[in-house]
């Protein structure tokens, strides 16, 4: 069930109403929300609700047993079981084919044909997100940073539909305390929520989908048919598309959660205003960045060791972050590129720069440089194979016309990047304006917004890019 559809609109009205009606009856509310969330997930493939339930049960059993013992050896074993179970699920669904086919090919090259079955495994939508949330829960219980949740709370947490399939990756310490208290039906930050939902719809349906159909998909499918300038704008287009697509989804998710009375962490913060790669990663997919930081980078040693150890930890974190997106060399290169860039910034002391202390020329120069390094990474991220990525890059040097760079494409690029430079104070002002208005008037403005979004977007609804991860 995709957010920008009639099906979701009907679903949400029913769930929103039912949720607030049932809120005084806590247990009934939890059962209701679990049912609604599983229905939401079942809309893709009902069979995978069993996977979601199984993942919840296994992680909750581990968490409960962790909470029941103070023996550190036992706790470490339980943690290992929990992490292994989660990685096992991810590995089975996301990496089995890649590793087994690689093994078959490697062994075949030395004259041995192993009887390894190449199974046809369908990737469940959102598996990376709910598995990472489950891992954070188990690890945080082990670290005694979060209390063991009651069973029903654990089911609500891991299935809560706004963030179930594409994040943001919400930690137990952020969400579970909100379940302990009754949400106040008189204190809903509606102005903020409506702004996020309408903005997210515009980003996804208009900016991302139009750019995809107008230039990006064609350039990446068949770069040889486009001039260097068209390919360049196709790459810029993808940079804006993936931002608008992913941040649009999480904006809607955060807005929907706010209307239900729950707060989610921010996931994007104007990433293309970054003046360094370090700055970029403070602004891009922030909930994944901090997950990687706290559960991978720090356990790998973080910045506590020497320069070599820190660089190794950094590279491992970024490459594994790349592989989190899928088992392909393109994602390894993407992660590796960012890892090398971050390491270079660290060695040269350029990562800690303060944008406010720079001259305008210096600041803009660094923004342009950072944006283009990020775009280089996006080429590998978007391309189906390494060969395709190099073909796209190779076309940049070619001449020719720029027929595909239409005024609409330029306008959407301008909106997608320019909106990130809008002063931060504008958002809260609009929120206050919206919150002060009559609900019917806000509804009318929302209806007009839906008219504009549906008219300007292309026909059909493309899935969100991050659903595949």
């Amino acid at each position: 069930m995709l957010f920008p559809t009639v099906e979701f609109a009907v679903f949400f009205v029913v769930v929103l109403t039912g949720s607030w009606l049932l809120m005084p009856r806590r247990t009934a509310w939890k059962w209701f929300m679990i049912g609604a969330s599983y229905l939401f997930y079942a809309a893709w493939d009902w069979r995978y609700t069993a996977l979601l339930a199984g993942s919840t049960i296994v992680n909750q059993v581990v968490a409960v047993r962790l909470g029941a013992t103070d023996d550190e050896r036992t706790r470490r074993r339980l943690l290992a079981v929990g992490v292994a179970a989660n990685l096992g699920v991810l590995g089975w669904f996301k990496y089995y084919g890649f590793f087994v086919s690689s093994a078959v090919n490697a062994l075949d090259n030395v004259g041995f044909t192993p009887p390894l079955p190449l199974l046809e495994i369908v990737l469940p939508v959102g598996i990376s997100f709910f598995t990472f949330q489950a891992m954070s829960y188990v690890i945080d219980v082990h670290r005694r940073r979060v209390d063991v949740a009651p069973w029903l709370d654990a089911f609500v947490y891991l299935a809560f539909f706004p963030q179930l399939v594409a994040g943001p990756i919400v930690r137990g310490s952020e969400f579970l305390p909100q379940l302990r208290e009754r949400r106040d039906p008189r204190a809903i930050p509606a102005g903020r929520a409506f702004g996020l939902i309408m903005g997210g719809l515009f980003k996804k349906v208009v900016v991302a989908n139009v750019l995809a159909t107008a230039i990006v998909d064609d350039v990446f499918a068949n770069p040889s048919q486009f001039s260097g300038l068209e390919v360049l704008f196709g790459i810029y287009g993808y940079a804006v598309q993936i931002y608008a697509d992913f941040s649009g989804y999480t904006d809607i998710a955060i807005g929907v959660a706010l209307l239900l009375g729950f707060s989610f962490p921010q996931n994007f913060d104007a990433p293309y205003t970054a003046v360094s790669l370090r700055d970029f990663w403070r602004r891009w997919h922030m909930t994944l960045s901090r997950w990687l930081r706290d559960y991978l980078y720090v356990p790998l040693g973080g910045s506590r060791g020497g320069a070599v150890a820190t660089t190794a930890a950094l590279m491992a974190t970024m490459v594994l972050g790349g592989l989190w997106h899928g088992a392909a060399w393109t994602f390894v290169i993407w992660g590796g590129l960012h890892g090398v860039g971050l390491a270079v910034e660290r060695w040269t002391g350029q990562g800690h720069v303060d944008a406010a202390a720079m001259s305008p020329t210096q600041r803009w120069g660094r923004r342009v440089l950072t944006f283009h390094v990020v775009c280089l990474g996006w080429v590998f991220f978007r391309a189906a194979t390494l060969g395709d990525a190099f073909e796209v890059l190779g076309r940049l040097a070619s001449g020719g016309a720029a027929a595909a760079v239409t005024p609409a494409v330029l306008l959407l690029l301008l909106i997608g990047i320019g909106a990130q430079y809008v002063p931060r104070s504008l958002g809260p002002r609009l929120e206050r304006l919206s919150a002060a208005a009559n609900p019917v008037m806000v509804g009318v403005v929302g209806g007009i917004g839906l008219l504009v979004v549906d008219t300007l977007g292309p026909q059909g609804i493309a899935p969100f890019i991050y659903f595949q991860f």
Partner: protein
Amino acid sequence: MATTELPDQLTNGTPADVSAPALAPPRQWNAGQVIVAVVTALVLGALFNANDLLATAQRQPFGRQRDVALALAEPLASASSAIGLTSPRTAMDRALGRLDDDASLSDDDASAQATPTTDPDASPGSQTPPTDEPEPVAVPVRGPISATEPLRLYIGGDSMIGQFGGALADLADDTGVIEVTEVKYEFGSGLSRPDYVDWPARLEGVVRSQSPEVMVLFFGGNDAQPLQIDGVVRQPEEPEWLVEYRSRVAAVMDQLVQDGVVVYWMGMPIPRSETMVIRLGLLNEVFESEAALRDDVHFVPSWELFAGPDGKYSEYLPDRNGDVVDMRLNDGIHLTTAGAYRLARPTITQIMADYGIPAPAQG
């Protein structure tokens, strides 16, 4: 954890709670006000976009879900049109130049837009082509195929073209003597639903604007859906369905042959779903038998190319280097890049053989 343990490369600190803006908090609403605003926005949005909702409902495969959608969308469109709320959308569509080339409906034709049906009196294949008889296209007399006078190739169809089109265009480019005029695909399109994308009309436009000599067409991914024939919904396994679908395929082939275009009609590869195995097998039989009736239409089989040694669907198959790789996307129908090249190679080889184009020098 001490802050000194935290890395400085990655994001620092817990991301801000988005519900806590820096300025004084705006007025907060109660749940009733929220529900009123949400319902108002959705109802108004539905009324504004009622014609688009109706068109979307009409494009759904025939069946109960479509019936329900139509039962809701038709009165909504009528009511919205009656009170003039479809006018803003119509005006915006007109300003964007969309009323001519997509399924958006104007106020006037919202209620008149009929569910696609087959004219019982029409001859086979007469439904989908434009009603106006097109002027014959002059087929230019060409010299030998060369870099300066390349063979003009158009590649189009449904989403199966997505990966395959790029692979075929890439291989065509390598020949140095084939010019790809366009690679065009539309998700969810095909020959079953001309009310969504009217491929016969579109291909006629392509012939006139691009003058391709060869077309590689790939349909079928969305075509195994019910059709409404003489007011009765027919399933793909029913004889009436096959007769109707065959007539549409034949009409497209005849139209292009008449325009002097040589057509390479791609067969669907074996799918994962057993139901789809039956249905796509039927489509392939239609494609192959209709192509066999026309000298300038060539069927390019792909079914067995994507089957394992047991003749069944196989996601993993050896590539050109003998490496076992994933050939199919997650849906069990579409091709990965490796799968696309697996199919594109015999396709371009067949075209090159038919036109006497030598293999490009290895470099």
